[in-house]
């Protein structure tokens, strides 16, 4: 047998063994397969930050034709439940106190005809701010409807209404699931790759089998590659299942190239795998490896990637820290590709950064993986 062929057949045998470990540990395997979908369902249905079934009342004099068209505008929106009209702002106060409404739009007498946009605001949106987040969201929705209404009216009247607010670009329906799916993919890749690789390598150490692998002719790179490939495969299965569910269950729009997305996912997965191998090389027990993987990869991927907290609003030192978090660059790529349809011409910089990280981590991981016992 030629040495090169032998190296590959050995590697194949190693991967077969790893797959067996994976499949035999029934509980973990089922969790790894189902966890991503469960998370997606959770984000998709339960943990949305968008608000529906907002009760709204419009306060205006009954004769105002503008009120009639505004009422129709709100009635057409599927986010709002239109309550019977009320005569004035004083009535609105009573509705809020008795918690019968979430939003009231007060229409002043001079909103009609040519005065729109020139006179002082004569349209007032009042929301129940006992929950500030929800309140802001409801106000935004209401504004969006009002803007549409203004636009329609200015078309009719031949005048251009001034749009005072930035449009909600790329997520015009403001659905949070659209924003979560890219982040979820980043989290799953981190979990399945870093954590599982670190765990599985340190398990060999704890069980003493690493001693046998080391005295064999297996080179460190063969042990690492053999460990990593099965988890890479599992991670990609997870990515595809999340993407399919997102596209066909939650109808998340997909603007860019699937190939670019998969390519970026593979790159990010490799970075995380190298990190997992490094963690395993630096720790001596499964517990330490788990904690290191959680603290070193999963937490930064969640907190410092821009997934939950916008990077732009972090203090400057923390913004610097985010640049060494691989997930930050991956989230940037994946949001761009999925929601904006960005191509390689734009995300090449992020891809390059991830590639450099991969090389650095791989070199560190292989150098720290000893050919002897520690």
């Amino acid at each position, binding site marked *: *047998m030629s040495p090169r062929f*032998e190296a590959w*057949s*050995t590697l*194949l*045998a*190693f991967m*077969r*063994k790893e797959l*067996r*470990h994976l499949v*035999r*540990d029934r509980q973990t395997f089922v969790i790894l397969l189902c966890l991503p979908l469960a998370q997606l369902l959770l984000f998709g249905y339960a943990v949305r930050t968008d608000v529906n079934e907002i009760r709204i009342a419009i306060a205006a004099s009954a004769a105002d034709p503008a009120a009639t068209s505004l009422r129709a505008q709100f009635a057409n929106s599927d986010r709002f439940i239109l309550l019977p009209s009320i005569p004035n702002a004083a009535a609105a106060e009573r509705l809020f106190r008795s918690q019968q409404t979430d939003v009231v739009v007060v229409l002043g007498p001079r909103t009609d005809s040519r005065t729109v946009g020139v006179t002082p605001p004569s349209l007032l949106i009042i929301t129940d701010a006992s929950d500030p987040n929800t309140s802001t969201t409801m106000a935004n929705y209401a504004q969006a409807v009002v803007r549409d209404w203004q636009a329609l009216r200015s078309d009719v009247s031949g005048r251009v209404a001034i749009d005072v607010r930035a449009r909600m670009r790329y997520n015009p329906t403001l659905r949070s699931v659209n924003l979560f799916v890219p982040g979820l993919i980043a989290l799953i890749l981190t979990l399945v790759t870093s954590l599982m690789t670190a765990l599985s390598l340190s398990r060999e150490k704890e*069980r*003493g*089998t690493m*001693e*046998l*692998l*080391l*005295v*064999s*002719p*297996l080179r460190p790179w063969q042990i690492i590659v053999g460990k990593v490939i099965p988890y890479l495969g599992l991670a990609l299965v997870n990515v595809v299942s999340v993407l399919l569910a997102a596209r066909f269950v939650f109808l998340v729009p997909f603007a860019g190239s699937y190939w670019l997305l998969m390519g970026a996912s593979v790159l990010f997965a490799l970075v995380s795998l190298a990190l997992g191998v490094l963690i395993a090389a630096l720790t001596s027990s499964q517990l330490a490896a788990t904690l290191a993987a959680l603290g070193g990869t999963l937490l930064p991927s969640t907190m410092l990637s821009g997934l939950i907290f916008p990077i732009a609003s972090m203090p400057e030192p923390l913004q610097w820290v985010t640049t060494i978090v691989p997930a930050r660059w991956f989230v940037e790529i994946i949001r761009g590709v999925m929601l904006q349809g960005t191509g390689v011409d734009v995300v090449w910089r992020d891809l390059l950064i991830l590639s450099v990280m991969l090389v650095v981590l791989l070199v560190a991981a292989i150098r720290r993986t000893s*050919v*002897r*016992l520690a």
Partner: protein
Amino acid sequence: MPDPVVQIENVSKAFGATRALDQIAFSVSAGELFGLVGPDGAGKSTLFRILVSLLEADRGVVRVLGLDPVGDLWALRRQVGYMPGRFALYGDLTVRENLEFFAAVFGTSVEAEYTSIAPIYQQIERFADRRAGALSGGMKQKLALCCALVHRPAMLFLDEPTTGVDAVSRREFWDLLGTLRDSGLTTIVSTPYMDEAMRCDRVALMQTGRILAIDDPTRLGARFPRPLFGVHTRDRRRVLDLLRTLPLVTSVFPFGDIVHVSTARVTAHGDDLSDAALAEHLRDGLVAAGLGDAEVRPIDAGIEDLFMELMGTESTGAAS
């Protein structure tokens, strides 16, 4: 004399403040079954790990199959079979899958090596599809031996293969080692069970990082420096304390249903006593204390007697 297969000189190894090995030296010839006998903490596992290239010695010279385990580690790793000190196979893989994996790691297959492992593999083949984790202790060790042999190593290193295994399985395992020895395979094996030393061609007695003695196990007992007697009585508990109070007695250890007693030969008055006279002296002492049924006769010392004797001199030597 043929070149030794294993030669180590002056090997020392420390972990922090703990001296695991202290100036170890011995050599093993081709085809020998060489035993390292000693309790936990003797340094046996550390020595094995140095020999199979898993650890580097702090000092000393190590040659295994003519290779240096530090400089020639990849050449060496192809040629040695190693069974670590605790069960280190994949419990979630079946017997056959474990064996196939270790064959593949060395670029071979179970089919290709079947004839060479058959004598051992046939004893576990009926469990081929059972998960290794569900095997009994004795079967696990046989599987581990198979895995260590599957690439036809030039030399075998077995670290405590019979620890925690019942007496029957231990015998069967040593029978297998005898078969391998007859086929000419050089083997170094360690054990905490003194009685197993008799199955080796030569043994090194080890204790806290040092070698106490190296010899043919049948000759080791003759090194015992003083007269030794076996004492038999029904009251095996009281006899220990009684013997310790008798003049001339230097050590008292229970051995199964008898007690081994060593004595000085020369009395305080300078009389040099014969074995018969010493036995008589012990018996008289016991009878006087009420153990009328005591039987005392001179016996030949075994490895365990010598081991305990050397342990004693080692520890007093260290203290002085």
